[in-house]
């Protein structure tokens, strides 16, 4: 069954008819030609499809497009502004934190979303109990990035890259 939805992706508005079963990931990749979010597992397990959905990081492979009609989406490609790389993209380059093409876009979007969550005061599983303030140390970064998996173990430089952006 086709339904019309409107999605705003990286600043451009698209209106398209989608089958009910189409996920946001497939709508972007297959229908709109926006291939920056990657399809790794397609089951919410790897983080390769991470986008900012109405401001918060989310897996686009488990979100149905019809359920997110009107959504505002930012992908890794949309993080750059006026031809300038986003500080997180720049930091990934500087620290040689790039991984395979599947994992990197999701890692960068996830890192950007994660820093917003820290700014909002959100705790993680390793934050001290009570209403303690979050100190974004290595343990915090690792825990908060645990939704992005990598099978090749090339991830050692991601933490320093994120830490640099967090400090600035």
């Amino acid at each position, binding site marked *: *069954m086709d*339904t019309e939805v409107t999605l705003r992706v990286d600043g451009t508005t698209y209106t398209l008819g989608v*089958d*009910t*079963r189409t*996920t946001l990931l497939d709508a972007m990749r297959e229908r709109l030609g926006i291939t920056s979010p990657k399809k790794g597992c*397609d*089951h*919410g397990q790897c*983080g390769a499809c*991470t986008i900012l*959905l109405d401001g*918060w*990081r*989310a*897996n686009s492979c*488990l*979100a*149905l497009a*019809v*359920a997110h009609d009107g959504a505002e989406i930012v992908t890794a490609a949309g993080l750059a502004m006026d031809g300038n790389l986003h500080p997180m993209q720049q930091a990934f380059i500087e620290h040689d934190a790039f991984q395979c093409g599947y994992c990197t876009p999701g890692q960068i979007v*996830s890192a950007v*979303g*994660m820093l917003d*969550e820290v700014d*909002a*005061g*959100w*705790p*993680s*599983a390793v*934050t001290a*109990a*009570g*209403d303690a303030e979050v100190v974004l140390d290595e343990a915090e970064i*690792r*825990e*908060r990035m*645990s*939704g*992005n*998996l990598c099978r090749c173990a090339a991830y050692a430089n991601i933490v320093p890259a994120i830490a640099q952006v967090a400090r600035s």
Partner: protein
Amino acid sequence: MRPLRYARAQDVPQAVRMLAAAPYGAYLAGGTNLVDLLKLGVATPELLVDVRRLTSERIEDLPDGGILVGAAVRNSELAADPTIRTRYPVLSQALLDGASGQLRNLATTGGNLLQRTRCPYFQNITTPCNKRVPGTGCSAREGHQRDMAIFGASQECVATHPSDMAVALAAIDALVRTRGPDGDRLIPVTELHRLPGEEPGRDTVLRHGELIMNVELPPLGFAANSRYRKVRDRASYAFALVSVAAAVDVVDGVVRDVRLALGGVAHKPWRATRAEELLRGAPAIAQSFADAADAELAAAQPLPGNAFKVPLARAAIIRTLLDLTGDAAEDGR
């Protein structure tokens, strides 16, 4: 995936009517479990009724000192709520120990409670499974048993309930407010999920079309002294092998009151009532905690492949209670 219809209702009564009239329909919230099961061919509804924007997204104080959590409150927001963090740390920690940041931003309170088992055979439609297709047999009994239940399982099914949040809610005596075709109900979380018995296909006592509206956290002063401990195969982003939700009230070195629930061990959050009975009035020392854990685990009936869960649960219970009662208890060891 089979073709399906998607519908958004004007209001809650209409949503309930729509689903009650569609025997092969399901409510959709964040979709992080349901869409996964649709892709696997495990869930085959003909209609999805979206309730994410229909139920409450608010966390409200109740006049009696309790808290009302809307069914659409996201897992990430509930975990971060300052009141939850200070008054029910066990709930905040259980949520933060579940899934990933990306998933918690989509997952809702109602959907988390009703997520289905992660038993690998339930999720693989090429294998027999009584929960998925009644009468086909249980592949787990003679198969991969590591994640399976040690309490309350039946010949038909040995699966565990995967939700961490539900274990914390069971420990603090939370209630679920529902609205169904037959009216409203208030169901203790401890009674929401069923043991498998001869009908493993039914996870909960909810009737078709019954919608979770809110979860109510009762006032429980000593829940401020509570915590969640999750033991799993990797440090983060994995389901529990065993988990413990505990809240303790210690006065003059004696346990005045306690709440204890276990996750990863049964078809439902396992409220450890035997252990609680032994602990009330007992000195808050390691020996009491060990005795209580042993009493609870005496009823365990593990399979060969998950027998390790018994000593693991014992250690996790003792460690969690020690953490909550401080050095005094450790000295009494």
